[in-house]
């Protein structure tokens, strides 16, 4: 039971401690994860915005190049002259400039000067072919009026810039540009009269451009790009890009449902993370922004996105998680130790109290009670202590009274000698002992000879004084192992035991006779009380206490009848009675003549 309480308390405290540290650890871990993801989202959004700004800047840079090339003095001239009377030298110079630009801009795929006339015939065209710039010659030049970068650009005011949607270049014979995702930046070539007579267009490779833009982005970032309808243009999985080109459109809104808001233009940025949207962004953190794209003032836009693996974001959380687990384990062990100590501290005083209570009557106190403590246990200990003292004092009193009662029951209250009952008990015990040891016992029945006269003459009070004095004298003459008791009235009885009882008996009887013959001073009078004594002996005069007492009494009467102031052995009485019986028989036989002894 005591162990039970201690164990229960230990388990309870340990569990509380472990639970508290575990929960704290868990919530710290979760909060940290949420914080890291939040932080990653913010930084990802910033990076996406930065990337989008760079894209704008890059497009502006291309536009600047387009202006430079369109303003080359030769360009309008070539366009105007090119109605069959081509200025070949001017074309060569322009082509050389185009080749230089292609050479210095790895992202440029084509630079062309296109005429408004002749169904948009290319006049000067330089293509990238690997690392080389290739000039496309007359016979291979194509008509381009059906392409938006021609008809849209020609519709612009001088100085305007056309930026095409990003598409895959399917123009036959375009060298490196063929089959690649590209955007076109173009401006009208204006004649001296201010009319748009042609178009200068640069084809920019999307992949090279993005590679340049994301050069300082962390390696684990991945780029997503979609056109205004949501068709993927850039995706980590290349097979998902330009789906419209393969007859199977793949939309950003389908892959990332939340981006629908961007395409419906209700939001300008969307953030997703794999913790809150595990279905849309499994294991990733993503940021998307909508960005106007194409001709200034147009309603065209693209959606640009960056992703980062959630695992990378949470790498820090994992480290922290590991150390949290370690801390939780350490604190749990600590909690268990503390729980054991605490349970002990609480239950030990209780155990002391319980021990004290269970050993209350044996008075075997092992530990001092914690009386000095100021807490509830101290109060309990003090109460217990006070209670135990009170019980003890009451018990002592009770014992004392009981002792008194026992004494009263077994003693004569006048002489303070054992009474008849006590004497008989002692005699029976002595008979049992003597039966075992084979020793002898003697009972002396003492009757005072002149007590009645003293009592009658001097009063009961004097009689009582005589009885007390007789008792003292009797005690005085007895040996240590012998016993004297008052049977009542002026009758006393003495038990003599031990070896040589027979000799001692006569001796003691003589001493008693003598001491009671000595004068007593009662109320200023000297008196002699005197006594007659009957003696019975065990085992010869009786086997029981009653028999011995009865026979001693009989012997005493015989002694008294014999003239008092003497003692008589019972067996002597029996012998004399036998003799008398024989003599009276003889007398009968001799004629009823009394025979005198």
């Amino acid at each position, binding site marked *: 039971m005591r162990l039970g309480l201690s164990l229960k308390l230990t388990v309870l405290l340990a569990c509380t401690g472990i639970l508290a540290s575990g929960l704290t650890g868990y919530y710290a871990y979760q909060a940290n994860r949420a914080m890291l993801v939040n932080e990653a989202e913010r930084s990802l959004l910033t990076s996406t915005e930065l990337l989008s700004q760079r894209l704008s800047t890059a497009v502006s840079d291309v536009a600047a190049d387009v202006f430079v090339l369109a303003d080359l003095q030769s360009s309008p001239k070539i366009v105007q002259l090119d109605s069959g009377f081509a200025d070949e030298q001017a074309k060569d110079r322009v082509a050389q400039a185009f080749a230089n630009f292609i050479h210095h801009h790895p992202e440029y795929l084509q630079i062309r000067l296109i005429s408004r006339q002749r*169904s*948009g*015939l*290319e006049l000067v065209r330089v293509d990238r072919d690997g690392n080389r710039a290739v000039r496309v010659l007359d*016979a*291979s*030049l*194509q*008509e*381009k*009026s*059906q*392409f*938006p970068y021609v*008809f849209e650009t020609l519709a612009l005011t001088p100085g305007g810039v056309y930026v095409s949607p990003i598409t895959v270049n*399917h*123009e*036959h*014979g*375009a060298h490196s540009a063929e089959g690649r995702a590209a955007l076109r930046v173009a401006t009208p070539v204006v004649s001296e009269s201010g009319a748009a007579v042609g178009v200068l267009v640069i084809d920019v490779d999307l992949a090279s451009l993005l590679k340049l833009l994301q050069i300082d982005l962390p390696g684990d970032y991945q780029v997503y790009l979609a056109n205004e*309808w949501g068709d993927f243009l850039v995706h980590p999985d290349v097979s998902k890009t330009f789906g*419209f*080109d*393969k*007859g*199977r*459109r793949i939309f950003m809104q389908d892959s990332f449902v939340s981006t629908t808001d961007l395409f419906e233009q209700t939001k300008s940025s969307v953030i997703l993370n794999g913790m809150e949207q595990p279905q849309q962004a499994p294991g990733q953190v993503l940021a998307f922004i909508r960005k106007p794209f194409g001709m200034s003032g147009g309603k065209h836009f693209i959606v640009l996105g960056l992703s980062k693996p959630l695992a990378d974001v949470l790498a820090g959380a994992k480290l922290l998680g590991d150390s949290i687990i370690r801390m939780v384990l350490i604190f749990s062990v600590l909690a268990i130790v503390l729980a054991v100590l605490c349970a002990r501290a609480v239950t030990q005083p209780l155990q002391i109290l319980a021990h004290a209570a269970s050993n209350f009557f044996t008075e075997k106190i092992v530990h001092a009670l914690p009386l000095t403590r100021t807490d509830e246990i101290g109060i309990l200990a003090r109460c217990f202590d006070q209670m135990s003292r009170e019980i003890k004092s009451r018990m002592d009193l009770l014992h004392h009274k009981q002792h008194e009662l026992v004494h009263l029951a077994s003693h004569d209250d006048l002489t303070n000698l054992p009474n008849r009952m006590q004497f008989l008990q002692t005699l029976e015990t002595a008979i049992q002992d003597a039966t075992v040891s084979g020793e002898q016992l003697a009972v002396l029945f003492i009757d005072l000879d002149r007590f009645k006269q003293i009592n009658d003459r001097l009063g009961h009070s004097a009689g009582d004084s005589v009885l007390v004095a007789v008792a003292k004298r009797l005690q005085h003459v007895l040996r240590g192992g012998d016993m004297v008791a008052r049977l009542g009235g002026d009758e006393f009885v003495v038990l003599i035991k031990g070896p040589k009882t027979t000799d001692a008996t006569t001796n003691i009887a003589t001493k008693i006779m003598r001491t009671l013959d000595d004068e007593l001073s009662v109320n200023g009078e000297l008196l002699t009380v005197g006594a007659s004594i009957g003696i019975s002996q065990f085992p010869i005069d009786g086997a029981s206490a009653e028999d011995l007492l009865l026979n001693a009494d009989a012997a005493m009467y015989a002694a008294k009848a014999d003239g008092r102031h003497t003692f008589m052995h019972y067996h002597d009485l029996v012998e004399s009675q036998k003799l008398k019986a024989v003599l009276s028989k003889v007398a009968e036989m001799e004629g009823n003549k009394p025979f005198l002894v």
Partner: protein
Amino acid sequence: MLRLYIASLIFYLGLLFSSAAGATENILRVLAWPGYADGDVVKTFETRFHAKVEVTLVDSDEALWDKMHSGTVPQFDVLAANTVEIQRYTHESLLTPLDLSQLPNTQRQLPRFRALSSIGGLIDAGKIYAIPFTYSSMGLIYDRKQIPLAPHSMSALWDPQYKGKVLAFNSAQHNFSFTALAMGYANPFQLSPAQIKLVTQKMIATRRNLLTYYNLPEEATELFVQHKAALMFGNYGTQQMTSLRLAGADVGYVIPDEGALAWLDCWAMTRSVVNRALALDWINFMLEPSVSGLLTQRQGLANTLTVSLESSDTGHIVWLQPVEDIQNREALWSRIVSGDRPESF
């Protein structure tokens, strides 16, 4: 104990087989296009025929081809495909002939669709392999403000009066076919090299008359409205009309006298069909007015039961057929679109 164990094992095996048998009895695997087997339609069928329908959607002929070829036999019971594709699958022996008597709803179809032999690709060696379900013609869309009288010929596309106001679709097969149709060739799908050469020249003439080519329907709508186009080759047919009208264009749709190309999607049953009766029930169910009508309501597609508003039943419609040499057409088309000049061909 062992006997009890074996008995229970037999019992569970029995359960397993009976449930497997039940599954094959009541499951129909459908390969279809978006809008052909919407959730409510499937639910109705499932309730009526106490069956479970598993619908797999595809969005291109290529995807359909891939699905039909995943596994040694097709993993589907019924499929929807256009006439050209049906012909390919028939030749590959991937389909099972259909019994018209099991398809009473075919009686409700317009005469044009009941004359199965007039539609190339549905009958092979006297057996019927597919039943028409929905179609879309590739007619001319015109701006009623700029062209008050509906054009009656495809040649309007290269009419100089509409120069820079014409939109065409960027597709090798259809452009050759419809140009050949406009030029009066009997079989626009099987052209001789000489015919190809002439068609190519005509297509360059068309190109020079164009504003541009379009790829996507929404792109077409935007170009049409923004550049105030007068005329457009409607590759997506009547489906395009809705979005054009929504964008504010006052447009008309016409099937020219030379005829219009049209794709026709049909239902067919695969060679590996498990429950023929259920598959036929499905095809028959698809031809119920309430189901076929949904195509028109929800997708803007014509069904085979009612005459559509946009294209009259009398219009000359030419169902798509496999072409003589698709690679050659695509190679030439790539050069035409890119702007190669006539003299280079």
